[in-house]
């Protein structure tokens, strides 16, 4: 369960806000200090972070498993690409458009499938992940999707004559979207829907008895999480100016799964840690071993899980609580923070 800010003691609350503000400030200053291709790397990480927020909502808070969320990422990416390429829609508007399409598809897919038990839901979503890349190449849709070749768009210009590079501008766009999406899910979880989602995860019968329509709620959650993935996909199309079926193979869904678990299920900060991991771990693995980067990657994943079973976020929490414990007089309350 995420730490409920309102239930925390003011001193702790302030410390958290301080950390968060410092982080946001760093995020804004970062692109001015690093090389252009690194700015591009971090722009993609912002996209992954949004994706993981969505997957986390589904898996961490709603307790539903999905092996196929890459499909919604692909849908969002293509909605953005098609709107820009075929209809000349300004790229910024394709983000909410992708959100809408993702939400609709997610909800419609969720309605019949959320009744399934976890393992079967996993298989159903797996089917989605396998089907979508092939559908993207399907000849009937080729005029839209560009088939195998995909869609190329032009790199967005920096507006208002701002004194930054195109790469930096795209980074800021992605960062702002990511922060907005973070705030959105944060508020969602604090509110009624959030409590209902968690209640349905932990005690579906009790929740149902209290008047929660379990199926609709779970489907809605599915829809919202798909919306996040679609937004992330749109951001990636804008960042790369290219979208093709090859980017959305089965492996993407697995990678997202890895990111959300290693980052920390059931925490929002986990989305950021997971995104950084997805973005940089393959490069790190490649530096260790050129010929078998996959093996190194796998080994590092296993090592992570051993050392930090509740993800990076969980590991940090344990660390921080120990730090706070030595400072705080009321250690009994601080240990009440769960998971």
């Amino acid at each position: 369960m995420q730490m409920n800010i309102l239930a925390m003691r003011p001193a702790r609350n302030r410390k958290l806000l301080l950390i968060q503000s410092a982080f946001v400030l760093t995020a804004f200053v970062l692109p001015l200090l690093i090389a252009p291709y690194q700015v591009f790397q971090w722009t993609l990480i912002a996209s992954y972070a949004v994706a993981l927020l969505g997957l986390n909502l589904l898996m961490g808070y709603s307790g539903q498993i999905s092996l196929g969320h890459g499909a919604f990422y692909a849908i969002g990416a293509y909605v953005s690409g098609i709107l820009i390429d075929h209809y000349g829609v300004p790229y910024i508007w394709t983000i909410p458009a992708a959100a809408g399409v993702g939400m609709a598809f997610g909800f419609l897919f969720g309605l019949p499938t959320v009744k399934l038990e976890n393992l079967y839901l996993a298989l159903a979503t797996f089917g989605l992940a396998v089907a979508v890349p092939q559908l993207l190449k399907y000849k009937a849709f080729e005029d839209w999707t560009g088939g195998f070749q995909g869609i190329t768009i032009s790199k967005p210009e920096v507006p208002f004559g701002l004194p930054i590079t195109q790469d930096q501008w795209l980074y800021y766009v992605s960062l702002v979207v990511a922060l907005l999406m973070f705030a959105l899910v944060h508020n969602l979880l604090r509110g009624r829907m959030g409590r209902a989602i968690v209640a349905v995860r932990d005690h579906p019968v009790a929740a149902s008895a209290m008047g929660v329509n379990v199926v609709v709620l779970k489907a809605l959650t599915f829809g919202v999480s798909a919306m996040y993935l679609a937004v992330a996909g749109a951001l990636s199309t804008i960042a790369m100016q290219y979208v093709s079926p090859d980017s959305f193979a089965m492996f993407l869904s697995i990678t997202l799964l890895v990111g959300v678990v290693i980052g920390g299920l059931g925490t929002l900060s986990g989305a950021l840690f997971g995104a950084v991991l997805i973005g940089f771990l393959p490069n790190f693995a490649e530096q260790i071993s050129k010929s078998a980067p996959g093996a190194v990657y796998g080994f590092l994943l296993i090592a992570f899980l051993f050392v930090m079973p509740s993800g990076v976020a969980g590991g940090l929490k344990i660390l921080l609580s120990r730090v706070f414990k030595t400072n705080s007089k009321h250690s009994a309350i601080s240990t009440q923070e769960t998971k």
Partner: protein
Amino acid sequence: MKSTHPLMLPAVVLCLSLASTAALAEKKYDTGASDTEILVGNTAPYSGPASAYQIIATSMAAYFDKVNAEGGVNGRKIKFISLDDGYNPPKTVEQTRKLVEQEKVLFMSGGIGTGSQLAVQKYMNTSKVPQLFVGSGQSRFAQPKEYPWSMGFNPNYATEGLAIGRYIAATKPDAKIAVIVPSDDAGKDYMRGFKEGVANSKRAQIVAEATYSTADATIDSQLTAFKAAGADTFFNECTPKFAAQGIAKAYDIGWKPMMILPTVSSSIASVIKPAGVEKAVGVVAPAYLKDPGSKEWENDKAMQAWRVWMAKYNTKVNPNDPLAVQGYVVAELTLEVIKRAGDNLTRENIMKQASSLKDLQLSLLLPGIQINTTPDDYRIIRKFRFQRFDGSSWQLFGSLVGD
């Protein structure tokens, strides 16, 4: 009034001419080139579903190792930096940008994967960095007007289709042809070239044509229709999996056309064996590289030199792997371009040299295949020899066909 010194004019002329020759002899470098080394970048799938193709890149690296061990080129060593992109376009973009912006390579060569290389094509052209000898026959890598900085190595699909069409027109002018292609851009290219080649013979007819989607389970229905149409020639332009199906199904339904495969589906291991070796006897395919597994080249000097190189520099690779031949050839071609650039190691000059190759022969291309490029025609491989499968290996026959 003083008049100018009588030797002034000749002196000025002499100085100017000395200055201009000095300018010509002057070394010119873009990022990635210096007096001592030249940086060449590459991305390849070292991980992921297509990791078998990494052999092309490892072989390129091994080739440059040999070049450096023997003193380099024009007094400079070649530093070949190859990064993993996992056959994943977003990763290709990231790694390519890293190579260009951080490692500061002079140019990229031998990039593997159509999808991956398409993802960076626009970036390479906007940044004016040569994207040479891409391992793809996609038409966009032979469009100098739109993408002047991109050049493919693999035979252009339309050109290969043209060669195959011409082969049929020449050897079987009364052919009743059936042709199947995938429903994507590559398939359209093949079909276009093929029809143009077939038109060389007025009596040859395409009696049946079909497409398939990679999402289809089989192409059985198309094949049955081909047999019913009475076709006696079959261009089986499919990717390996479907090509194998085509071979097997034709045999099973008792249809015995002259069957032709594209180069990308002519691997014995991935296509012939899965189809069934006995079912593929008589199948024909174009070729442009010497096959290390073929007895034909046992006494060939170039092949022997290749084996020596494999044993010394490329030890991790199977000594009969045709991908190692491809890597060697692409590296040899890259070296040739660098050599010709001399001391003018700018990206523009690299591109200029690559697009002005004349009658270039590389040791492991089939004899007679020469490379010619111009600023209007970037196609490296345009001619082929044809080979026939005899039940155990490919046997070359006939003469060169192509554009």
